[in-house]
């Protein structure tokens, strides 16, 4: 090891220790536990090595497969909508107008609200007897009021909506950063050529903002894969497992039912999915990150 590397070691050591102990080791330990049958409520069974049995069970567990489907629908719909809404917001916030700073701050508010708070807020708004949602749809016709969070078809949509509301502004920020790199000269040239607003958007903005869109999409995909708070507060995975996303299912198995081995197999499955997404993310921005991350 070179001298400068040894010096650097002392600076990074505390963080390496903590990240190693609380992130890297736990992943490996989860992987190890997934090969055991361990049930907290039945300690006398002991920790029995069962090889791939947990994974075999997982592949045939209808609840787990359903949970995977629910998660994929949630991730696909919310990430796509967030990027669309975020693009709209970014286009507006990129215009110059008075009080733009205030408008940007206002759009950031949902992002700053704790997810648990926004989840309770949506529960109140979606209430089946006096929620604002029902009043806006049906007015005083209370007999037609819906219970979105207790309806297996509406609950996933309600959760997707709550997620889109909360995190679109994050996508908007990434897209806005992309929009700001487009040189004004291109629009001026388009004006000279007599391009319409739509043509400018279609031929100039969209192609140039595409990398930022992709980044926002990937980032939101990775993040929405981790959805937990919304489901915990709004539906507890119900009704009839309609919103039982993987992270919630894993939590239930490990912490509510004490099925450590089986729950760890779910955890490893979720981890593998997100690892693939992370690699895509690093591939996408990796080159520039490594360039910029390098020392002088």
């Amino acid at each position: 090891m070179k001298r400068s590397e040894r010096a650097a070691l002392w600076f990074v050591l505390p963080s390496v220790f903590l990240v190693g102990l609380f992130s890297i080791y736990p992943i490996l330990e989860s992987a190890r536990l997934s090969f055991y049958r361990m049930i907290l409520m039945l300690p006398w069974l002991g920790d029995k090595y069962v090889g791939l049995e947990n994974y075999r069970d997982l592949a045939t567990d209808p609840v787990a497969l359903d949970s995977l489907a629910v998660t994929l629908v949630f991730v696909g719909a919310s990430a796509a909508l967030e990027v669309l809404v975020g693009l709209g917001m970014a286009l507006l916030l990129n215009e110059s107008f008075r009080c733009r700073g205030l408008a940007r701050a206002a759009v950031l508010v949902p992002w700053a609200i704790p997810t648990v708070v926004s989840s309770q807020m949506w529960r109140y708004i979606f209430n089946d007897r006096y929620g604002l949602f029902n009043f806006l749809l049906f007015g005083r016709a209370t007999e037609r009021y819906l219970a979105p969070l207790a309806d297996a078809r509406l609950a996933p949509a309600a959760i997707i909506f709550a997620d889109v509301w909360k995190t679109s502004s994050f996508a908007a920020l990434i897209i806005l950063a992309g929009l700001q790199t487009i040189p004004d000269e291109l629009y001026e040239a388009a004006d000279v050529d007599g391009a319409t607003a739509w043509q400018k958007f279609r031929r100039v903005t969209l192609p140039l903002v595409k990398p930022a869109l992709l980044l926002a999409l990937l980032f939101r995909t990775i993040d929405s894969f981790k959805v937990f708070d919304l489901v915990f507060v709004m539906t507890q995975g119900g009704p009839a497992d309609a919103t039982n996303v993987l992270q919630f299912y894993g939590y239930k198995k490990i912490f509510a039912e004490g099925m450590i081995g089986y729950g760890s197999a779910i955890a490893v499955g979720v981890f593998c999915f997100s690892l693939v997404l992370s690699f895509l993310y690093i591939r996408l921005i990796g080159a520039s990150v490594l360039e910029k991350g390098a020392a002088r």
Partner: protein
Amino acid sequence: MRPLLRFLAIAAVVVYSLLPFLWFVLASWKSPAQLTAIPPEIVPAFHWGFYRSAVTTYGLLAYIRNSAIVAGATTAVSIAIGALAAYALTRFRSTWLRFYLVVLLCVSMFPQIAVAGPVWRILDALGWLNSYPGIVIAYISFSLPLAIWILATFFKELPYEIEEAALIDGCTRPQALKRIVLPLAAPGIFTAAILVFIYAWNEFFFALIILTSPALQTLPVGIALFPGEYTMPWGELAAASTIATLPLIALTLFFQRRIVRGLSAGAVKG
């Protein structure tokens, strides 16, 4: 875009962003009868009873205290440890350091469930479940990748010449960090601190599994587990939610530019 159309579109976006939460804040000031009224009554009676009972019946102050201690301690320690790492990552050249940067990037994307069980077992073995040190050390570890990435972005932009001159004059690396880099990077450090604080203040998953004793629970856990299965105490819940969110909205309004910069440092570049 035509000015009127643009104004309407911007107004729509602002209303969409603010209205749902404003509705919840209004609920905290309504009278019990107004809460469930159909048609809904928009103007509240400015009844402060829900805030009082949130404090007296539901122990709101204890949750606020726990959240402030946990988020404050997490922020202070993460920034201290993160600044050391970010300094090395931007000032030394090594393949290992670059690899570490990529590892940090991956780690920040792990779903919580992938580590939750073993983290719980480590803290259990240390006897740190249901304690401030237990939750704080877990939070520090999880917020470090974010802190290091943001700090590294800011450190990189500092002119290296001043530091180089100091090093040549016999200043040691830790001295250079303390006397030159930290003062110059103060705005960046502040930005990273705001974002780590918001992360720690809002975090729910680990607080839920580590803090099972109500006396130690943070605001998100208190709000998520608000008692009341069949008739929710919406007024008190809205009051507690308003209080939990107020500091964050204040931070966002005051430091919007910094937050945007920090987030794009943490997200776009890493």
